[in-house]
């Protein structure tokens, strides 16, 4: 369950840009300076950020911002590729020698660790460390991050993590190099699951409580040398990491220096000015107000832009009247003017109009528009017809929950305005940022509609559609099925896809499921937000990674001139 971190206001540490490649397909400029150029070895990359990291403990942290950062200090059994575009979302072996060997019809998965992998302490990484780390996910206090291990791997119902319940009986370690996972039921894409943060090895017996949040034990190319939560974080090389065992991480710079707590406007100013060490800096997406300022050729050359990989949507609560009538929900889908919603977040450079539930970065996604309107400006006539059929021609009042954040409020106002001609009076209910997801995730407290977003945990429909629309997942708290859709047809298709053995076929089937769900109109897909970043003039090797909400892939970024 990963909520859109872009919406959460976290500035991701980077995104990148396909610009380097897309503009010059001929490759003639490949050697030139600029974000797409070749990174030299050495130097320190500066990262300017607004919000600090949620957690350094890999079992706790789980959002687009830390996932990208974790790859610098941690390794997992498998990981996503390090390349722009679709190559970046391909799962490749990391600590393991391959992406896993299934047996028992996909219910048992075996991984073998590479030789020569070690923690920053110098101790070799063994299968026991992996087992120990994964079992931490069952600890009720620590296992608050990625939920997949808990959902998929079999475990005794009473198991509460290694500190309380001892060794986990369902993960076997026949020898120091081999880990065997037993799943609850066959899972074809388990190779992607073990790329989750939960599968970062932790030395057996360590990491109780918040120990790892302040002093992580690195397995990747860098280790934390100084960390002041909310202020700064410094990474230096981990000399126990052997580049020969790692085909993913270029790890060119000698270190990284994060500065947290900067005002977004300040970050934009500094990135545009690019003075001093800011020439070696990367930052998150710029604000809408800065877009007009980065139109000069010099700044454009330093700009990276691409899709964030998330969908921003308005969930329609299908248990409330009159939204329980599918025609009313379809009418709203027709009527919403996505153009004005997009302008509210910063216009065409910061978002694309969304038509389907899954964003374009998802493998197997079908590109279609079930509720078309000219230029996405809304088809009021079609909507009115549906409302008349539903007996709601006279209009009604609905309450739209939104976060106390200017961007989110602006979107809510745009929707309010678009529904006004249908005499649908939208009452905007502003909820404090800190309690927003708690409120809308509690069915007894949520209202008729809510604006939120969803990012896939890995770019497959499996982490997008079932969490949002499986009617059996509706919970009294922490509910992500905002529409409370519980449709037997959809549930059945979800089960059928889960039973597919072939990942490619499953992804294609999710594309079809997307269409099946949108016929029921449980949500209005609004936007696929983009990242738009200005990087320092000395930054090289930067590209946006589709798997990290469009952040700049930190394991590949470096400096053109390491001496600067």
């Amino acid at each position, binding site marked *: 369950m990963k909520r859109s971190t872009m919406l959460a206001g976290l500035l991701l540490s980077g995104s990148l840009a396909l610009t380097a490649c897309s503009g010059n397909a001929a490759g003639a400029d490949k050697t030139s300076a600029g974000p797409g150029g070749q990174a030299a070895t050495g130097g320190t990359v500066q990262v300017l950020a607004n919000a600090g990291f949620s957690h350094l403990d890999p079992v706790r942290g789980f959002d687009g911002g830390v996932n990208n950062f974790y790859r610098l200090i941690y390794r997992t059994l498998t990981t996503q590729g390090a390349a722009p575009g679709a190559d970046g979302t391909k799962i490749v072996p990391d600590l393991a020698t391959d992406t896993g060997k299934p047996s028992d019809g996909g219910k048992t998965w075996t991984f073998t660790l590479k030789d020569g992998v070690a923690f920053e302490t110098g101790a070799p990484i063994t299968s026991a460390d992996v087992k120990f780390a994964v079992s931490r996910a069952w600890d009720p206090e620590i296992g608050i991050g990625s939920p997949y291990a808990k959902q998929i791997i079999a475990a005794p119902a009473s198991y509460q993590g290694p500190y309380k319940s001892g060794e986990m009986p369902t993960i076997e370690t026949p020898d120091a190099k081999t880990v065997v996972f037993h799943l609850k039921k066959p899972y074809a894409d388990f190779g992607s699951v073990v790329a989750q943060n939960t599968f970062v090895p932790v030395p057996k017996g360590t990491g109780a409580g918040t120990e790892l949040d302040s002093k992580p034990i690195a397995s990747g190319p860098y280790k934390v040398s100084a960390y002041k939560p909310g202020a700064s974080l410094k990474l230096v090389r981990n000399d126990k990491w052997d580049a020969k065992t790692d085909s993913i991480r270029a790890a060119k710079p000698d270190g990284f220096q994060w500065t947290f707590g900067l005002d977004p*406007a300040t970050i934009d100013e500094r990135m545009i000015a690019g003075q001093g060490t800011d020439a070696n800096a990367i930052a998150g997406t710029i*604000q*809408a*107000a*800065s*877009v*007009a*300022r980065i*139109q000069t050729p010099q700044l454009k050359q330093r700009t990276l832009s691409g899709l964030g990989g998330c969908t921003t949507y308005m969930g329609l609560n299908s248990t409330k009247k009159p939204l329980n009538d599918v025609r009313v929900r379809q009418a709203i889908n027709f009527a919403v*003017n996505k*153009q*004005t919603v*997009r*302008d*509210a977040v*910063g*216009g*065409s*450079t*910061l978002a694309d109009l969304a038509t389907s539930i899954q964003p374009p970065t998802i493998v197997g996604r079908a590109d279609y528009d079930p509720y078309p309107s000219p230029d996405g*400006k809304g088809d009021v006539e079609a909507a009115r017809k549906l409302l008349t059929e539903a007996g709601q021609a006279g209009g009604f009042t609905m309450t739209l929950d939104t976060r*106390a954040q*200017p961007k989110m*409020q*602006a979107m*809510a*106002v*745009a929707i*309010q*305005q678009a529904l*006004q001609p249908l005499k649908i009076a939208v009452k*905007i*209910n*502003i909820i*404090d940022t800190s309690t927003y997801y708690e409120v809308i995730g509690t069915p007894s407290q949520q209202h008729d509609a809510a604006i939120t977003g969803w990012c896939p945990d890995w770019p497959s429909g499996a982490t997008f559609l079932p969490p949002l629309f499986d009617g059996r997942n509706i919970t009294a708290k922490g509910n992500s099925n905002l529409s409370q859709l519980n449709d037997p047809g959809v549930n059945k298709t979800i089960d059928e896809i889960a039973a597919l053995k072939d990942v490619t076929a499953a992804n294609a089937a999710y594309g079809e499921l997307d269409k099946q769900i949108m016929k029921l109109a449980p949500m209005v897909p609004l936007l696929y937000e983009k990242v738009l970043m200005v990087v320092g003039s000395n930054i090289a090797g930067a590209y946006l990674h589709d798997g990290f909400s469009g952040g700049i892939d930190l394991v590949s970024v470096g400096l053109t001139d390491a001496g600067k």
Partner: protein
Amino acid sequence: MSTTPTLLEVEEVGAAAGGPPTSTQRILTRLVHDKAAVLCLAFLLIVVLMAAFAPLITKLSGWGPYEFDSSAINSALGGVPNGSLGGISGEHWFGVEPQNGRDLFARIVYGARVSITIAISATVLTGILGVVLGMLAGFYRGWVDQLISRVMDFLMAFPALIFMIAILSSLPAGNRPVLLVVVISAFGWPYLARVIRGQTMTLANREFVEAARASGAKNLALVFREILPNLRSSIIVMSTLAVPGYIGTEAGLSFLGVGVTPPTASWGQMISSSVSWYSVDPMFFAIPGAFLFLTVLSLTVLGDKIRSVIDAGEAA
């Protein structure tokens, strides 16, 4: 001042026969002879008329305060208004808001409604609270005074702005303007009540009050027939000077995001959302800023003039 020429005094004496010495008429006459006061009055009249006739005015200008105009902004540049000076044109007299193209003129006009209504309501409420509680404390003295004065001390010593932000952000959305008025008044009345209490204390010992008491007047009659009319000038001055303060407070709270909720137009909110646009679209900041500044300035100058006229009248 007894040495001043007598013309004025003669007039005063003549007027005194028909009404109290600080007659409304005299204040007005004096004010219209003051250029600054006239300018301020004229501007305030415009703002009040704008507020009162907002729907009519926006009908004339062609754009409502909530209507989006996608054609007036450049989506590819993050939503900056097309054209120079924030998109000022025959169509949009004050330009448009970035990102959605709402007409700034219409939003200024409707924003005046919010500002004026909230400020006036808060002034009326603080006026009533301040006068009643101030007179109670000043007239009865003893434990009533103790109680009221301690509450006033408490409220005045309180970091009011911080508390207002805390209250307003924890309260459910509800009816924001009413909440704003209540919260602003709750922290505003002691300033008036203090002055009223002091004046009531002096007045209560004056001969005419004692004469009334000796002739058998009840407390109620004393307070309302004898003391209150003599507090009039203080109340007028204090209230006039309070209005700009409340306009500023409302704008400040809206700026901080705890004032009226979108899409309602409010000057403070406009200024708040213009902050990030200052370098790209300075007019978005300048226009609501100018209106807020001029309104507060006019009220302050006017309040000051009224005070000096009244003071002169009392001295004479």
